[in-house]
């Protein structure tokens, strides 16, 4: 199996264990776990956007009164049902975002011609990023033109049928590690089924 595809497969196995989780406390634990995994795999976790998403989604859902009133702030009632729905949606969004980050951390290669076209796009992107220099004042379009023209000359109309190179294959240890991550997600899901935690 190709190394780049291992995390995609592991992530696909993690998703049901996460989406089927009904307990909010365990769901939060799964989110923290997947964030840690993403960091281990070289991705960055930015706490501010995560908190903004969490707070904004919960607040928006609190506007719809649902279930037992927990407390009131002026005329605004905070209800348990709305809080649970808000937390569920926010955690799902954040969790899926980091599952996705984890899945692409192995730099997967999409198969077929479309995959090759994507590779070509990334080749051009890399060229723009590396050759882009801060433009002089009022010469932004000229700078952009230079980069765009360069690409056509450096990389002329290459055929997409070129074979793939540098394929790395999976080692046993990597399979064990990724399987462990998947297992942790499923154990957490199973614990949720036992109904021993509140907020189920």
């Amino acid at each position, binding site marked *: 199996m190709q190394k780049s595809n291992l995390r995609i497969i592991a*992530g696909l196995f993690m*998703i049901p264990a996460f989406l089927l989780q009904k307990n909010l406390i365990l769901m939060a634990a799964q989110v923290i776990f997947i964030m840690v995994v993403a960091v281990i795999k070289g*991705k960055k976790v930015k706490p501010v*956007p995560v908190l*903004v*998403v969490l707070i*904004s*989604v919960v607040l*928006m*859902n609190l*506007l*719809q009164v649902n279930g037992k009133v927990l407390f009131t702030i002026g005329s605004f009632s905070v209800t348990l049902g709305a809080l649970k*729905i808000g937390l569920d*949606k*926010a955690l*799902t*969004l954040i969790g*899926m*975002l980091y*599952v*996705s*980050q984890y*899945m*692409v*951390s192995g730099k*997967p290669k*999409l198969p077929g*011609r*479309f995959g090759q*076209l*994507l590779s*070509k*796009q*990334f*080749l*051009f*992107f890399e*060229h*723009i*990023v590396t050759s*882009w220099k801060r433009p002089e004042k009022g010469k932004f*379009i000229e700078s*952009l*033109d230079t980069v*765009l*023209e360069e*690409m*056509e000359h450096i*990389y*002329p*109309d*290459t*055929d*997409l*049928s070129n074979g793939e190179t540098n394929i790395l294959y999976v080692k046993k240890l990597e399979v064990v590690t990724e399987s462990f991550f998947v297992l942790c997600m499923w154990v957490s899901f199973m614990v949720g089924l036992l109904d021993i935690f509140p907020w189920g």
Partner: protein
Amino acid sequence: MILETVRSMILSSEKTQSVITHIAILAAFSLFLSTVEYMIPKPFPFMRIGLANLPVIIGLSIFTLPELLLLTVLKIVGQGLINGTIFSYIFLFSAGGSLASMVMMYSVYKLMGRFTSFIGISIAGAMTSNAIQLLLAQFILFGSSIWIIAPPFLLMGFITSIFLGIFANVFTRKSRWYADLSTRKKAQDTPLRKTSGTEGGRNSHAEK
């Protein structure tokens, strides 16, 4: 039908390689702009300026509908892979907004291209994209409370799309690369297609 054309376009080797290369260049440009936008601080993570839509706006006067569709799909998938959102709900927002906006901009360009500049086209695209994203947000995340933030969200989209449209107008007027590409594309298309009134404002924006 359109998908079949896109498929055959990717598969054909010689005739369309040049077009494919230009699509890949604009898709890469879109990724670059998306990275630039990512670095600009925003009060909310879901708030977008839409800089990455610029290549699609520019592409309206160069590409056919299947070519534009391929460019948009490359933009969506590329962004999803770079930002790591391809398997998340955010990808759904991006895909829904981008595809709807592309179809709207293409329609406006074809039907009213003679009467509107890239500013009008950009506004139409941004409003469509924002409306679709609000609808998706209503069903997936926020519920009906989303409409509370709809006015500032749409206003923000309206303002940024004006700037994007102005930039597209300036770019198509000043860019050597764009002028060269338009000329080549025109020469390529002439024996194949007869330009008619329904062709809208093809290349007319560059002269505005």
